[in-house]
């Protein structure tokens, strides 16, 4: 059985997935509506972690495998955009909230 053997081989991963699902739900179950947008933006930056996959693709590609190199290169650029842009935009939003309170 493919599925059973998969679980046996990837026991830890399966646990990680299931626990992460519950953790994600728990962590933000009570959030004031004012923070919905920054939180969405912050979560958006965090899934930029996909950049790590892009780096691995790029780093494992053979030197003459141009299709893989080009696609990987593009993936690294896009992933970095997601990460850097995501965190900076979130910070700018939250900066607004803070400066208001100081005034």
């Amino acid at each position, binding site marked *: 059985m493919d599925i059973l053997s998969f679980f046996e081989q990837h026991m830890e*991963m399966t646990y990680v997935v299931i626990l992460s699902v519950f953790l994600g739900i728990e962590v933000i179950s009570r959030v004031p509506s004012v923070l919905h947008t920054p939180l969405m933006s912050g979560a958006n930056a*965090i899934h930029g972690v996909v950049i*790590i996959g892009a780096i691995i*693709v790029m780093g494992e590609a053979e030197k003459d*495998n141009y299709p893989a190199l080009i696609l990987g290169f593009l*993936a690294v650029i896009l992933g970095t955009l997601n990460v850097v842009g995501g965190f900076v935009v979130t910070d700018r939003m939250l900066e607004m909230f803070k400066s208001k309170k100081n005034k």
Partner: protein
Amino acid sequence: MLSLIYLIGSVTFIVGLKMLSHPATARKGNLIAAGGMFISILGTIFLYTHNGEHLHNFWWIAGGLLIGGVIGLVSAKKVKMTAMPEMVSLFNGMGGACAALISIVEFEHVNAETTSLHLLIIFAGLIIGSISFAGSIIAWGKLNGKIKDIAFKGQHIFNIILLIVILAIAAFVIGVQPVTMAWWMLAVLLLSLLYGVFFVLPIGGADMPVVISLLNSFTGVAAACGGFLYNNPVMLTGGILVGSAGTILTILMCKAMNRSLKNVLIGSFGGSNTGSGSKEQGAYREIGLSDAAVVLAYAHKVMIVPGYGLAVAQAQHACHELEVLLEAKGVEVRYAIHPVAGRMPGHMNVLLAEADVPYEKLLEMEQANPRFNTTDVVLVLGANDVVNPAAKSDPASPIYGMPILEVEHAKTVIVNKRSMKPGYAGIENELFFRPKTAMLFGDAKAVMQQLIAEITQV
């Protein structure tokens, strides 16, 4: 060593998200998550080994990081506060595209020994990533005003069929593993992109934040697929965390608007009732600019209720000017902010903060409602559903039960709208037909500027 870095990375994501959900710690939380991301990326570049081999092509990687980093930084710094949601959507699309590209490259490595589960995960990454990419780009265009709502009859059925076809092809390829896999992959890619487009196209522009939040969690799942492919714990936790947190956030956003996710996606809400002539309208009273100016200038207490119209017209600066002018004349001016005004939580706070409106003048709904009794003039700027008394009185109304700003208790209500067309929910607002209410038609910004000119002369 790398496992330790990944562990720290995963923990920072959890702590970061947790801190992001409290106002006092939000900014720090974002920085902590960013720090975790930074060390995870550095760790991957320098410490990752596969079968004892380090990564190569460093210059390519460095180049990609540099280009993406600079573009990301500059565009995030330059974007106007009002354009934030579409920026988030655009970045989300980039992440989706990244996940899809990874899957495409991984197809090359598929061989006879590839398990069907491995193939399944590659397909999942491809499909979810492409849908998220195409959908986010459409959402971005819609918020920009570049793309209009497009819906045709039977679109939902069309979408469902499209999705079934995509899944069927994927199932076929996984089960049979045909030789011409590249073509099948291309077909799945194109159809998924198409699905992403048609998924978002019919959804109303004001509902976009909810859709973006949903696509956001899609991208999270796509990233987690990458985590499976490379046995990478930080991608897995980060991706799944965003996937589940994003889903909950989407539901929370819907709840704040008193709608269900199904309603948002299908958009059935009031769709049949948007025409202005479909219902008995009653008579409304119009007020001229100079009259409105006089009413405002001689009031003691004025409450401004901003809404989506203010954001669309970019009237926040003009609005602040009006407030300063009125205050100089001895009028007390406050803003009443409904939690979902503009249908994007926190939208109005951010907009008005951008125009330097002092924080103390922004009242939340709970603070504002008891004050309407003693308010002389309420100026409603492009808000509609959040002041609709039907939410309290009419159980048949789709927005029944949503807490509203009780502006009808004030002595006079001046409503600025562009026309008598119903608001986003597509329902009539009886407030407009009450004797206390006067309508002031026009674009919020233009009207503000004219009001300012008139009041200066009073």
